[in-house]
């Protein structure tokens, strides 16, 4: 069959909402796009563990400590599901980690911001996880089967994350003067980076059209961003706090909130590595991996020893 025929069959399947599975023929560009997007997503999950793991040892109550551990542990799980799904496309986890550790692969810029107070655990849960969920729910219907299945599992688990985040902020918002200050300060710092999580504006997002055609992506960056702003602008009222955007106002005609201009300079700078914590985050990942090398080696050496011995026993 010619490549054109294969491509036609492939696109027909996608148009008919038939999932693509690992061994099916797919265009190279589709495979590449998936590997890039899925591994980037996996990297984001495991780098994303760091700013929150920061506060596990400082969590203010035993209940908060337990839920925070469980949450960060979930993120490890999500990274793992996504790496596994990516591996079905023929790229091993070793190689993917290598790309992360050498700076060749990107991860979500949001995790290059610091977690300075306990309220950041709340703001991350509410805003960052909230934005992530908005991005991720449509991916449960992504055209690539293993990706979609991983996302279904992730979305199911993710909903507790956002709720616990909001609960943290709600408690702070009803607390002492210092706690309310903490709460507003965290919202101020996390709001714009969260809004940026949806990526560049549609007219500046070159790969989007193709991804939409392949149904790897189902809504545009700006559509999702608008939805996020609309939802958050209402939720913040329950906290009795404000979002740090003087231009945020309900637009009766559009039935949406208008909001202020995004500082894309900052966005691109953080992506380029100039965020406040880019270096620390990557170093922490590299260190964990390198410090773990002897552990992984030892387990492998032992497994090989045992299987050699069991073969010997069978022969004898």
């Amino acid at each position: 069959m010619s490549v054109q025929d294969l491509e036609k069959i492939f696109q027909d399947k996608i148009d008919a909402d038939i999932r693509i599975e690992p061994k099916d023929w797919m265009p190279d560009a589709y495979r590449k796009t998936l590997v890039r997007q899925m591994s980037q997503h996996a990297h984001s999950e495991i780098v994303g563990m760091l700013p929150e793991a920061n506060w596990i040892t400082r969590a203010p109550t035993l209940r908060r400590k337990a839920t925070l551990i469980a949450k960060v542990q979930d993120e490890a799980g999500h990274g793992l599901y996504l790496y596994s799904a990516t591996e079905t496309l023929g790229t091993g986890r070793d190689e993917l980690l290598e790309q992360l550790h050498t700076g060749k692969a990107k991860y979500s810029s949001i995790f290059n911001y610091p977690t300075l107070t306990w309220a950041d655990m709340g703001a991350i849960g509410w805003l960052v996880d909230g934005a992530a969920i908005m991005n991720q729910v449509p991916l449960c219907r992504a055209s690539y089967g293993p990706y979609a299945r991983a996302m279904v599992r992730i979305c199911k688990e993710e909903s507790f994350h956002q709720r616990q985040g909001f609960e943290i902020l709600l408690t702070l918002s009803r607390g002492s003067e210092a706690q309310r200050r903490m709460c507003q300060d965290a919202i101020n710092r996390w709001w714009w980076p969260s809004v940026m999580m949806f990526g560049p504006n549609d007219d500046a997002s070159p790969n989007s059209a193709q991804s939409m055609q392949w149904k790897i992506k189902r809504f545009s960056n700006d559509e999702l961003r608008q939805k996020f702003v609309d939802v958050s602008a209402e939720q913040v009222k329950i906290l009795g706090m404000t979002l740090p955007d003087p231009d945020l106002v309900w637009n009766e005609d559009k039935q949406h909130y208008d909001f202020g201009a995004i500082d894309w300079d900052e966005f691109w700078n953080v992506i380029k590595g100039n965020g406040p914590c880019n270096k620390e985050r990557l170093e922490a990942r590299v260190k964990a991996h390198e410090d773990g090398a002897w552990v992984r080696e030892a387990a492998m050496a032992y497994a090989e020893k045992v299987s050699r011995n069991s073969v010997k026993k069978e022969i004898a």
Partner: protein
Amino acid sequence: MSNQWPLWEIFIRSKQGLDHKHAGSLHAADAEMAIENARDVYTRRMEGVSIWVVESKHIHASNPDEAASFYDPANDKVYRHPTFYDLPDELKHM
């Protein structure tokens, strides 16, 4: 030497009476560890009562390119389904 642990496919029985179902995969040095990892990764929310692990390299799959010759021939064999047979309504328990 690459110290990447082999990949394992994980199958979970969610409750007694159901089949084991593919849950995903993970890396482990040996089968014992794969089962424990599967317990921690795929049953954190009480999703399982039994776990199977198979090293991924031992799974052999049918080839999707041959899907036509493999699966289409079953299309015209409706006589394998009970509804193919026309029987009077009075007939009970069949």
